């Protein structure tokens, strides 16, 4: 039953894509690709809800041999547990909504069918990633979603910026993936398998075989695998691709770069939970914390509505990583789900706004093309140098919040829904899901810090807390600038209007989903159990999973989740977690403190942004001027791109001097700094080396041979007496040689 359901979930989107592919090969197009894809997604959605009912307390795996060699076999298979089920629902749900939304948003695009085909392919890959039970399968899905994100970011590839962005995304994430692959190689060499579960799986083996002596390489392996997550989830320092990825159509940003793909990193880290060691967890936690804070600060000063959301996504992902690293498994995953919905909602909302501004023309996107062509032309002159400048610095007017304002009357539904999402992400207490998840994370981090009971780990909590405050601040800044106050750009404002039904309905649905009640339908304390972490504490014996409410998957307790988290704090962090089962009196001290503090910072943030951007009693400008350096730091995104550009330009000049003949290889500086260095210098060098040295030697040999030939020819003077002399000389020489011998 489960197998057939999962197969169905996977096959539907795949089939939808295959149809497109085959027809495309035959050079025809299928006009109603959108219906096909959407229907496929809806079926998948239904299946995943059915699947939710199938989940039993102990997870099941179904595998087949994929590659079988003499000594080892690599198997492919499904692993179905509560987390899988939840992820399936999240993915299919968001994906279906985005499909529906796109019908309106992408309407009239020249490559309309292709868009939906890509969406289907993406959904398939993502689902494959989610259900697969082994690292190899995860890696495969991992790369495939990367491909889809590449295709979709570059969907309007006429734009140079889009073309650059998609390449940057692929390469940057690939850097992380290589790290992940190395980690996989380490695990494989140790365990001779890549499947995670079952008695033959990595987790079991790791629990049974490894001793304290193995902790070092295990930590390294853990961190390396986490590198993959760093790339995909846009953690520091590989985060720069995500903001640029906003070049893609907005629904894509909502689906891939907010809800699902970027969360895959978190999912992977969560899956790796059982083999995380002390060290690797710390690394993860710190990377997450720093990312959360830095990204949030950058978001404060953005004006491009999508960029703001992008940075907020980065920071929220940082949160989840932090949670996993701090051991709050449940909290992390819970935030993943909640965030998936409200962030998707925010993006779709922004999309609806952008669409509204577009709608002044009959065919919005054609116009967008023209406009992009124009600015693309504008940038042809410096194509050679970095187009990283182009990204971010240039804000298309329809995405610039400085052109917006007072839209709440024009587009009420969009406004309301986005407001709900904003409240949710800002962590406004009790009736919004974001509050619970974020609070859970904070609690978890604090608890962990306490338990590590070394002062410096409290910095994690502080980072998280301040990030929470800043989040509240910039999110409300967005709301105020967009929907409140006076319209700043009148004629654009006049044109604006509420989006069509196909776009507003998904907004409403997502808004509902941002309420905790709904989430607890499938996300429940006893339902999601953190797996044991044998290497984090004492060796993994007798970890009793809390099984209070059974796997029914239904618990109408509003606080279920936070209880679960509380339970987790005790359970996960006491060495044995024997009283993990009593989740009722789970309100540890950490939890209360965290809740209170988070409410305060959220309130503070909202209040400040109200002062700045609505009441205007405080002027952002004055603050800006007073804290100019800090502002610049934020505005320039901590100079990441500038750093790369600087490196690039320097190199370009140097190269132009050194390897003149390789101007052809001067690159548009899209790969991150390392990429740039290697590509320009090494490529130019090796190229030159190949032509000059390696080939040179060969040709030199040839020349010498030829020259000797010429010499010998010259002996052949044509005068007979020379010949005779040579004869005599030869005889004498031969005799002499042999006397010498």
């Amino acid at each position, binding site marked *: 039953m489960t197998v057939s359901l999962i197969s169905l979930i996977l096959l539907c989107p795949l089939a939808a894509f295959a149809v497109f592919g085959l027809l495309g090969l035959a050079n025809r197009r299928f006009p109603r690709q959108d219906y096909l894809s959407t229907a496929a997604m809806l079926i998948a959605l239904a299946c995943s809800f059915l699947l939710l009912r199938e989940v039993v307390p102990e997870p099941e795996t179904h595998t087949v041999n994929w590659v079988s060699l003499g000594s080892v076999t690599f198997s492919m298979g499904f692993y179905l547990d509560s987390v899988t089920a939840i992820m399936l629902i999240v993915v299919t749900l968001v994906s279906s909504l985005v499909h529906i939304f796109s019908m309106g948003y992408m309407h009239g695009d020249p490559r309309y069918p292709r868009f939906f085909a890509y969406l289907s392919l993406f959904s398939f890959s993502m689902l494959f990633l989610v259900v697969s039970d082994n690292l190899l399968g995860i890696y495969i899905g991992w790369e495939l979603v990367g491909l889809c994100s590449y295709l979709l970011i570059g969907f309007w590839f006429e734009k140079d910026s889009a073309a650059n962005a998609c390449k940057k995304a692929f390469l940057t994430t690939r850097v992380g993936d290589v790290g992940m692959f190395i980690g996989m190689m380490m695990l494989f060499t140790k365990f001779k398998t890549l499947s995670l579960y079952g008695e033959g799986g990595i987790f079991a083996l790791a629990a049974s075989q490894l001793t304290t002596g193995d902790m070092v390489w295990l930590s390294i392996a853990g961190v390396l695998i986490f590198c993959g997550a760093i790339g995909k989830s846009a953690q520091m320092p590989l985060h720069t691709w995500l903001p640029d990825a906003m070049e893609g159509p907005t629904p894509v940003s909502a689906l891939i770069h907010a809800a699902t793909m970027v969360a895959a990193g978190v999912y992977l880290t969560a899956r790796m939970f059982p083999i995380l060691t002390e060290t690797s967890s710390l690394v993860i936690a710190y990377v997450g914390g720093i990312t959360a804070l830095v990204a949030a600060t950058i978001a404060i000063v953005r004006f491009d509505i999508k960029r703001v959301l992008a940075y907020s996504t980065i920071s929220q992902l940082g949160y989840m990583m932090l949670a996993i690293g701090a051991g709050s498994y449940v909290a992390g995953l819970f935030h993943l789900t909640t965030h998936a919905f409200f962030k998707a909602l925010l993006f779709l909302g922004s999309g609806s706004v952008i669409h509204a501004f577009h709608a002044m023309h009959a065919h919005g996107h054609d116009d967008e093309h023209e406009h992009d062509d124009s600015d693309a032309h504008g940038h042809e002159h410096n194509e050679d140098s970095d187009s990283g400048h182009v990204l971010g610095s240039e804000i298309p007017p329809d995405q610039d919040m400085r052109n917006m304002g007072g839209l709440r009357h024009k587009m009420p539904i969009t406004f309301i829904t986005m407001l709900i999402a904003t409240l949710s992400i800002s962590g406004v207490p009790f009736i919004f899901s974001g509050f619970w998840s974020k609070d859970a994370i904070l609690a978890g981090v604090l608890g962990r810090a306490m338990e590590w009971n070394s002062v410096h780990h409290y910095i994690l909590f502080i980072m998280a807390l301040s990030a929470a405050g800043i989040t509240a601040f910039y999110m409300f800044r967005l709301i105020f600038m967009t929907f409140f106050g006076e319209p700043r750009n009148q004629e654009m404002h006049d044109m604006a209007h509420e989006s069509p039904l196909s776009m507003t309905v998904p907004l409403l649905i997502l808004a509902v989903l941002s309420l905790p009640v709904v989430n607890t339908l499938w996300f429940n304390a006893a339902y999601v159990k953190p797996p044991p972490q044998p290497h984090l504490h004492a060796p993994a014996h007798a970890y009793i999973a809390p099984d209070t409410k059974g796997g029914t998957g239904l618990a109408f307790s509003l606080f279920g989740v936070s209880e679960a988290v509380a339970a987790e704090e005790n359970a996960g962090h006491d060495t044995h977690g024997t009283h993990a089962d009593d989740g009722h009196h789970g309100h540890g001290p950490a939890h209360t403190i965290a809740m209170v503090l988070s409410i305060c910072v959220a309130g503070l943030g909202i209040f400040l942004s109200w002062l700045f951007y609505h009441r205007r009693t405080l002027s952002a400008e004055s603050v800006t001027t007073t804290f100019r350096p800090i502002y610049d730091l934020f505005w320039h995104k901590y100079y990441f791109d500038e750093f790369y550009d600087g490196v690039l330009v320097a190199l370009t000049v140097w190269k132009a001097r050194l390897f003149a003949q390789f101007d052809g290889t001067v690159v548009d500086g899209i790969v991150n700094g390392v990429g740039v260095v290697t590509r320009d210098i090494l490529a130019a060098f090796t190229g030159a080396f190949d032509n000059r040295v390696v080939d040179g030697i060969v040709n030199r040999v040839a020349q010498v041979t030829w020259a000797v030939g010429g010499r010998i*020819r*010259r002996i*052949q*003077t*044509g*005068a*007979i*007496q020379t010949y*005779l*002399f040579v004869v*005599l000389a030869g005889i004498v020489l031969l005799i002499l040689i042999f006397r010498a011998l």
Partner: protein
Amino acid sequence: MTLQHYLVISAILFTLGIFAVLTRRNAISILMGIELILNSCNLNFAAFSRFVTPPEDISGQIIAIFGIVLAAAEAAVFLAIILAIYREFGSIRPNEVDTLKG
């Protein structure tokens, strides 16, 4: 007169012949040099057959005689070719006959 004397003389003749062949700037002189070489060989054979081989074995002298005959034949051919050379090149200086080279 012992064998050594003959050998020394033939060696001298041989060397003279080689010298002539290498240095003379006239085809005829070269021919003479060649004759000297051949005759030195003949002298060797005669001498050896006189001093080394048993008296009843005259193969050495026979070889010498054949040598003389072949020398004569060679001289004839050589002269003929020199005529041809003179006809084609208008000269019999060997170093002027060098169109074929390299």
